[in-house]
């Protein structure tokens, strides 16, 4: 309860029930009305249907990282309209206001269960976590710093994919980040990804699928192409649970599905068990 009022509406999925009743949110999956304070205390998991609703990057950091351990890097980096794309400046301005972030990813160094690491967390309320040049640049720097300091990386993804307004520059971020992931991999360092709803398009087809260990939240949509596009080729109703984390795990592309209540414990444990590699094999 004490947090109430500190955070404004977290994301699209949690619509205010009415202008007058700001203390209640409606679950985007089951439609239940939930007290905002209860939802926050329950880590934005709907108490009725267990939907893992969208969550702000900073709240995730707060939950996962050891207290006061997070030190942000590259906070000030901001996007430019590289192509002069019509309307992009307005979109950025609106996204900044809505998210109170400068871009769609928050990066930094932290500790989880005492283990130092670099962490990047994508922000759903900034243009649906879309990947433009700054997102690519910040994540690349995160991996480069981790290589320098011989540290593992944890990436928490939420993204509709590449950011169209940056055209080819956003597509090329897939390559840039992938090359950095590869260097981190070659250095024998651990990279874990936690995929949250949704992780799609160019993010799915790059760093989401490149981790040594791929974790996902229950019910998260994980996939390359959008369901509407696939329906056009499939010409019938898509199978139940298609592109949901549970089904993607059955197909062999996800290691583990983790509720928000288990994430810190399991991630800390995985970091512990990779310590040899972290210390350079000693």
């Amino acid at each position, binding site marked *: 309860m004490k947090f109430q009022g500190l955070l404004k509406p977290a994301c699209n999925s949690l619509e205010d029930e009415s202008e007058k009743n700001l203390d209640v949110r409606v679950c985007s999956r089951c439609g239940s009305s939930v007290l905002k304070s209860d939802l926050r205390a329950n880590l934005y998991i709907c108490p009725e249907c267990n939907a893992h609703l969208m969550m702000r990057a900073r709240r995730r950091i707060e939950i996962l990282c050891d207290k006061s351990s997070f030190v942000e890097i590259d906070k000030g*980096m901001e996007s*430019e309209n*590289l*192509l*002069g*794309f*019509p*309307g992009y400046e307005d979109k950025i301005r609106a996204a900044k206001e809505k998210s109170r972030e400068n871009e769609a990813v928050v990066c930094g160094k932290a500790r989880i269960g005492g283990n130092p690491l670099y962490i990047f967390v994508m922000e759903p309320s900034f243009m649906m976590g879309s990947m*433009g*040049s*700054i997102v*690519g*640049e910040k994540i*690349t720097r995160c991996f480069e710093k981790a290589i320098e300091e011989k540290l593992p990386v944890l990436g928490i993804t939420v993204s509709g994919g*590449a950011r*169209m*307004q*940056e*055209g*080819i*520059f*956003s*597509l*090329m*971020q*897939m*390559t*840039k980040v*992938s*090359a*950095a*992931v*590869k*260097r981190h*991999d*070659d250095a024998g360092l651990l990279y874990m990804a936690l995929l949250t709803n949704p992780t799609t*398009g*160019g993010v*799915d*087809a*790059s*760093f*989401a*699928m*490149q981790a040594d260990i791929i974790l996902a939240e229950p019910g998260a949509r*994980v*996939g*390359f*192409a*959008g369901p509407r596009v*696939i329906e056009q*080729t*499939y010409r019938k109703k*898509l*199978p139940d649970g*298609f*592109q949901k984390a549970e089904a993607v795990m059955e*197909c*062999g*592309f996800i290691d583990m599905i983790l509720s928000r209540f288990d994430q810190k414990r399991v991630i800390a444990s995985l970091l512990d068990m990779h310590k040899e590699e972290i210390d350079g094999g000693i």
Partner: protein
Amino acid sequence: MEAYDIVKNSRNADRWCASDYIKLLITDFLELHGDRKYGDDKAVIAGIGKLLDRPITVIGIEKGNDIVSRLEHNFGSAHPEGYRKAMRLMKEAEKFGRPVLCLIDTAGAYAGVDAEERGQGQAIAESLMLMSSLRTPVISIIIGEGGSGGALALAVSDRLYMLDDAYFSVVSPENCATILWKNNKYADKAADALKLTAVDLKEREIIDDVFKTASSAWDEKTINIYKEKLLTKLDKEYESLAKMPALDLVDMRYKKYRRIGRV
């Protein structure tokens, strides 16, 4: 040509496709098949041949140029097996110190239930990682459509070229217009805004050079002049890349992509 006309033209069935360029440039081409994991995706043709005297691994996304061959090659939209076949043969090229040539012509990776279930995103992601550190020279040429991640998966190279009437884009102009402006009739406006033509991309240093496109209307003499020019250029580039120690080559490739969108 306007940007959107270039996009529409790049989809014409009477254009030269990857197999035509392979016939023109590569002698003794032997096609190799299969990803050793699931199947053989005919949207990707791959094999070994010679570029002048140089043994080379060639990987092309093939559209086909009549309805029968277009169906056979799935209109140039690869399944994960296609990218996995490409990766297998790139690794084979690396093992034997042979350079790689990729010919890209795709509207995008196949968007289907089976492709998703077999890991379309994972296949592309793996290809990006592999190509970023492949210890052998790689040249990629976008010969028609350079559609999003499905094209990018074979475009991580030491030299990236485009034909003068090809395009390379994060999204098709139609989808871009539909998503941003709720109407695909603004596709021409989207095509302009995306800066997806060879000239636009050269200007922004995304690609290294622009080559003329081949035409079925040319006579034999014109085709031969074209062929000689292209072969000389490619041979010269491979020659200079082959002189570099493998680690320097990989480092140069890293820096080439590292600077894109840097602030």
